[in-house]
């Protein structure tokens, strides 16, 4: 690959997705301006707005291009280290050309120093390379899962192409041809191309080495092999049909088996299309709530209900990015929403923040104290519903008498709370606890 012009190289070294070292210092913002998609993947469920924590393609709020620009402005004030703005969904960036290009043009005009990047499945790429070049977009991610149309037919049930819905290898031949043609055109235009591949054990695990070689020959800049995220609760084809993501060893074996010279990327956090912030710390939901409530203060919603002597009412904390579904990792939650649940009656009673004393400086924030803070914030709760949770916080919560529950991952909150109440009340018919004010 020819040497990048120095500004390009600087752009790349400041891009947290392309340069591991940039992770700690440079923040990125993903804008969810692209709702429509032109293909279906078996690991994605387009039916639900938000089911899965940190799953690419999942986003809580769709932005118009104008809203997106306002968001960039607002985030830049809060995160001066914002260097990258990406558009990755929730559908396919290039399947929404009007919204996409209006947003990109606006960013180019108003925030010329920001790096723009796009993610796409590649189907519409050949026809859009001109625009990408014109707008000075230097980083494009293409998701490619195999070079073999037959294998691809087990990953993509259909594509929309030339005014028709196509299925089977007729569809996947076109998709793969366009991905490769798009890759070539981008490389020729000097754009840095990252290829994302979703490792789906039993489907494409034997095909990624070949893909890795091919994209190396064609000049891809990075290859990011990611584990599939699959859970029946997400309602995806793979989730429901019993396909599961790889374990660490399987993922490592596939990565090790790739011999192409393209650099492999292993620090990907599979961020959501509306992620904000540093790669390791998705600040999207936090900032979102700050915009809702002003100035970073989390307010209790019904203060008068905070202190009640419960009979068999359960107070349950929920970790949610979206506010509608149980969809956040316990360890990622900075805010928990509290509910009092009694029989069919679910009442939101307030919110607690776990890092209320943390200002992000070096003096605070090691994992133990964060966990302690979470425990303090959740004091008085009977249970906490989250999408996932690590082993040691699980133990710590249990020790503190708070039941961690992750079996409602992806489920709508009210439904999850009702189900949880119904199943636990039989076991603990009377819970007596003095609630503390939040």
């Amino acid at each position, binding site marked *: 690959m020819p040497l990048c012009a120095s500004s390009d190289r600087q752009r790349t070294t400041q891009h947290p997705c392309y340069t591991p070292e940039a992770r700690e210092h440079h923040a990125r913002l993903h804008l969810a301006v692209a709702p429509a998609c032109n293909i279906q993947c078996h690991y994605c469920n387009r039916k639900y707005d938000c089911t899965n924590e940190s799953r690419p393609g999942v986003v809580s709020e*769709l932005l118009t291009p104008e809203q997106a620009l306002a968001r960039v402005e607002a985030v830049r004030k809060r995160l001066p280290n914002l260097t990258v703005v990406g558009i990755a969904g929730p559908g396919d960036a290039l399947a929404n050309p009007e919204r996409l290009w209006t947003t990109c043009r606006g960013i180019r005009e108003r925030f010329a120093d920001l790096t723009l990047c796009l993610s796409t499945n590649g189907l519409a790429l050949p026809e859009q390379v001109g625009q990408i070049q014109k707008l000075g977009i230097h980083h494009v991610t293409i998701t490619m899962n195999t070079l073999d149309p037959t294998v691809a037919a087990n990953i993509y049930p259909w594509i929309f192409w030339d005014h028709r819905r196509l299925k089977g290898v007729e569809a996947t031949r076109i998709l793969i041809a366009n991905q490769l043609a798009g890759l070539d055109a981008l490389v020729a235009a000097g754009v840095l191309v990252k290829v994302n591949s979703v490792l789906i054990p039993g489907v494409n695990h034997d095909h990624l080495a070949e893909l890795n070689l091919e994209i190396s020959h064609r000049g891809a800049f990075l290859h990011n092999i990611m584990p599939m995220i699959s859970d029946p609760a997400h309602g995806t084809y793979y989730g429901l049909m019993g396909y599961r993501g790889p374990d660490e060893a399987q993922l490592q074996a596939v990565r090790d088996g790739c011999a192409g010279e393209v650099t492999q990327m292993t620090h990907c956090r599979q961020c959501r299309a509306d992620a904000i912030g540093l790669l390791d710390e998705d600040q999207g939901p936090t900032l979102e709530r700050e915009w809702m409530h002003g100035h970073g203060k989390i307010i209790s919603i019904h203060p008068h209900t905070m202190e009640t002597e419960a009979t068999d009412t359960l107070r349950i904390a929920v970790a949610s990015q979206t506010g509608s579904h149980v969809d956040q990792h316990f360890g990622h939650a900075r805010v928990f929403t509290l509910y009092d649940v009694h029989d069919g009656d679910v009442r939101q009673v307030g919110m607690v923040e776990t890092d209320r004393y943390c200002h992000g400086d070096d003096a605070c924030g090691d994992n133990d104290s964060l966990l302690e803070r979470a425990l303090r914030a959740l004091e008085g709760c009977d249970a906490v519903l989250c999408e996932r949770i690590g082993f040691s916080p699980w133990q710590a919560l249990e020790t503190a008498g708070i039941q961690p529950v992750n079996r409602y991952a992806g489920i709508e909150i009210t439904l999850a709370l009702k189900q949880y109440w119904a199943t636990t009340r039989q076991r603990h018919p009377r819970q007596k606890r003095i609630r503390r004010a939040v």
Partner: protein
Amino acid sequence: MAYAIVAPCTGCWACMPLCPNKAIHPHGKKFTIREPLCTECEGEFDDPQCASICPVEEAIVDETGKPLNPRGSLTGIPADY
């Protein structure tokens, strides 16, 4: 002669820009087809455009209420699942 968008629509916006007759409009968080404008794409395309890109089974129905994309036809998840 017209199709209709019904409850399962998730409001993904995919169909709206494709309609040759501008018959599709946002309606709350979902979409709706203005019946008098919809031609079922006859004379314009071989397949109705909205139903050809819609990712959600049973979201678009014909005049008899029959879904253009019945359950199981798009996701591959069996209809009785």
